[in-house]
């Protein structure tokens, strides 16, 4: 017994020491910690606070009863979700679009950054970069109508070119095969340019002597890229890949919403649009919150898994 008391006293002393040193640390770096306060407040207020609302996934939420007042229904919403055919269709569409994205859209900024990195004429490079960034700053609502006009079978530029080669015009946005292609391509158009920023920054930090050494060893441009540039940005690619996999269960709402139409709903209904129509428009809040919760959990599992894999491959992961 006295032993335990001593132990307690010991830990208490340590706790006091620790809190004292923390206080010291706090007063020493008070500006830095002060600057952290708004960010923590933001996270608590807008990211952690709303999580409380997730409990309506286990309730039958009615507007009148509110979050607390609504009746508990256990996992009924999940049972309903997993037994509905809609669920599998939107899950499939979401995953398919994201796999396409990972295969085609994810490497696009890397390739673009590699190309930009080799441009030696400074003013040309800057102009090119600026032109590539522009689409990122235009909202999907505006870009969507440009895409629709560009892909129009009768007046669109793309079909005009096809016709020059004697090909039949294609109604890209009303065809279940071409719609995902158009979707990914328009996404690349909007975001690839802006995505190069991080890679270019990473490339700028590569030690120039490495290139010189490679040159002396007789490496040409392609070899230099393969053996110096790419390994130099490996860790950046790894981090962005983890982040991308975290979005695996998510397709941006706006882009789908502007580009979809009746003819392609079988491939264009994704989790975000489904949550919108079922939850927000049709007031089935609990049902769609259950879907959202499911989506988040899968995304979390994916992020953890990919982080493990990347660490096993010898890269630094997210944590």
């Amino acid at each position: 017994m006295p032993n335990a008391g001593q132990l307690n006293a010991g830990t208490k002393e340590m706790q006091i020491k620790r809190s004292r040193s923390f206080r010291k640390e706090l007063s020493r770096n008070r500006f830095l910690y002060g600057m952290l306060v708004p960010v923590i407040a933001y996270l608590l207020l807008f990211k952690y606070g709303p999580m409380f609302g997730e409990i309506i996934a286990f309730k039958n939420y009615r507007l009148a009863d509110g979050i607390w007042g609504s009746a508990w229904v256990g996992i009924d919403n999940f049972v309903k979700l997993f037994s509905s055919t809609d669920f599998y269709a939107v899950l499939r569409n979401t995953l398919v679009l994201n796999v396409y994205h990972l295969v085609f859209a994810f490497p696009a900024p890397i390739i673009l950054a590699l190309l930009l990195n080799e441009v030696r004429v400074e003013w040309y490079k800057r102009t090119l970069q600026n032109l590539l960034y522009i689409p990122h700053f235009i909202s999907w609502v505006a870009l969507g109508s440009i895409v629709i006009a560009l892909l129009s079978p009768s007046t669109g530029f793309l079909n005009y070119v096809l016709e020059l080669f004697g090909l039949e015009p294609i109604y890209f946005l009303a065809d279940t095969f071409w719609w995902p292609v158009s979707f990914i391509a328009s996404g690349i158009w909007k975001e690839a340019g802006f995505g190069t920023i991080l890679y270019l920054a990473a490339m700028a930090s590569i030690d120039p002597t490495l290139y010189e050494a490679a040159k002396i060893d007789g490496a040409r441009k392609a070899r230099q890229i393969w053996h110096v540039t790419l390994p130099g940005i490996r860790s950046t690619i790894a981090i962005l890949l983890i982040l991308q996999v975290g979005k695996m269960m998510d397709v941006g709402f706006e882009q789908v919403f502007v580009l979809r139409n009746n003819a392609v709903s079988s491939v264009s209904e994704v989790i975000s649009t489904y949550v919108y129509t079922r939850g927000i428009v049709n007031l089935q809040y609990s049902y769609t919150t259950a879907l959202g919760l499911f989506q988040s959990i899968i995304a979390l599992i994916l992020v953890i898994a990919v982080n493990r894999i990347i660490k096993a491959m010898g890269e630094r992961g997210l944590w």
Partner: protein
Amino acid sequence: MKTNRVHGSKMVGLIVLIIMLAVTACSGNNGAPANAPSSGNQQKDNNGNSAAPKKVSISMFDRGQVSSDEGTYEENRWVDWIREQSGIDVTFAPVPRNKAQDTLNIMIASGQAPDLIWEYDRNYIGRLVSQGAIQPVGEYIEKYSTSYKKYLEENPELVPYLTFNGEMYAVASKRAITAVANHAMWIRQDWLDELDLKAPTTVEELVEVAKKFKEHYPDSTPIVGGNKSDIYAALNGASFNHWYLEDGKMKFGATLDRYGDAIALEKQLYDLGLVDREYLTDTTNQRSNQLWTTGKAGILLGQWSNEPLNRDLLTTVPDAKPVPLEAVSTKNGHYGTYQEAPPSFFIAFSKDMKDPETAVKYLDWLMDKGWYTLVNGMEGTHYEMVNGVPKQLDGAKFEKEVRYAAEYAVLRQEGVKAEDLPLKAADDPLSQQVAQLSAAALNTALLHEFRRDIPFQPNFDEINEIRSTFDTFLNEIRAKATTQGPKYTAEWALGEIRKEWERLGGAKAEEVANAWYEENKSTFE
């Protein structure tokens, strides 16, 4: 060291200030509706009486019609006028028209709903009832109202529309015939004359005329318009989202043979190249409007109230003669295009409403006299009385200063007739010509009754549940059958639609609808 500390506390102060600003900015965003619940603690004047005006808030459709020099939907000349005339401090909470229901839902869920919430869609009010977001109004009307109570006694046919689960949950006034008629068809008389054709009276003739148009004007698109699919269905007497009585049993429109005929018509016109091949992606009707207003289309399947489009057409192609086209008959009968049911705006009372008495007083004021000025503008400035009809003095001025105000008048006693439209319009020849056309179109649209077997649609969770999946499926199947060539026929589409309906539990929905019909049919007469 000391200066450093002073500096530090200033820094902390600055950060605190930034956070506070951020937080207040967020709550400031809530805008008008957030003010409403705070009406309880309004200041009292020096005498201690609560002489401050009574407050009420009401939703509003933002159609983007208020020009910037007029102000906003929240603050403009009419809002000032309403407050001054009614003596009630009314605040308006605009919601974007094409996202009205979801925006309202979010406002309600986050406790920012205005006191009065309105929609044209009775089903939406029904959903709010089952969500418990609104409260019964019968007692308030009984206790506080004079004008509306009287109006309701004179127009008892409104009562069933306002009743949900046996209680009155909304107030509404009757639509004028200008608001009852909705969809309509237009045709270019000059094209008919040029080809020596008569206006089509059957759907077969309609197709023939369109074909002739295409032959004679190869660059044209004979048939355009955003209401195409709805009109094909209405002509066949089977709107997809309406219930019909087939041999005394309730059946859902989309599952009927007649609806299959509508799909067949849509497909036929598409296959013959008589419609814009891209109308699926033309969700904003931009292409369609452009084709009509530049004189490149022969038949418009749109609305009777087509003034802006006709005005543009007559300006770009002065020789054009757009005329209303009477609904054509099909093998299923001779039905009109879509018309609205009698009640206009359904106005519901939020469950959190603080002051129902003021709300009822405001509605009474609108019903009595407020609506007239909001619809017609100021006498002497915007209109003058000619033969008992308010006549616009200046069309352009009216469009800019008064047009948007009409939707503030959610209760009206409007008795406008088709003949009044030219009398109300401004004097310039174009305004007169367009108004004459509208008057003719209104009469034409009302010649044939839109098929409606029951006055309003049953509203049950079983049905809503099915429809949230079914509607998407239906639209896709219809698009597929129309555009994907001879492999996919209308019969195939109807077969798929019925299969999906069965799979989703359509039989159960029909049972529920039938039970509802049997229970309520006595009130439908």
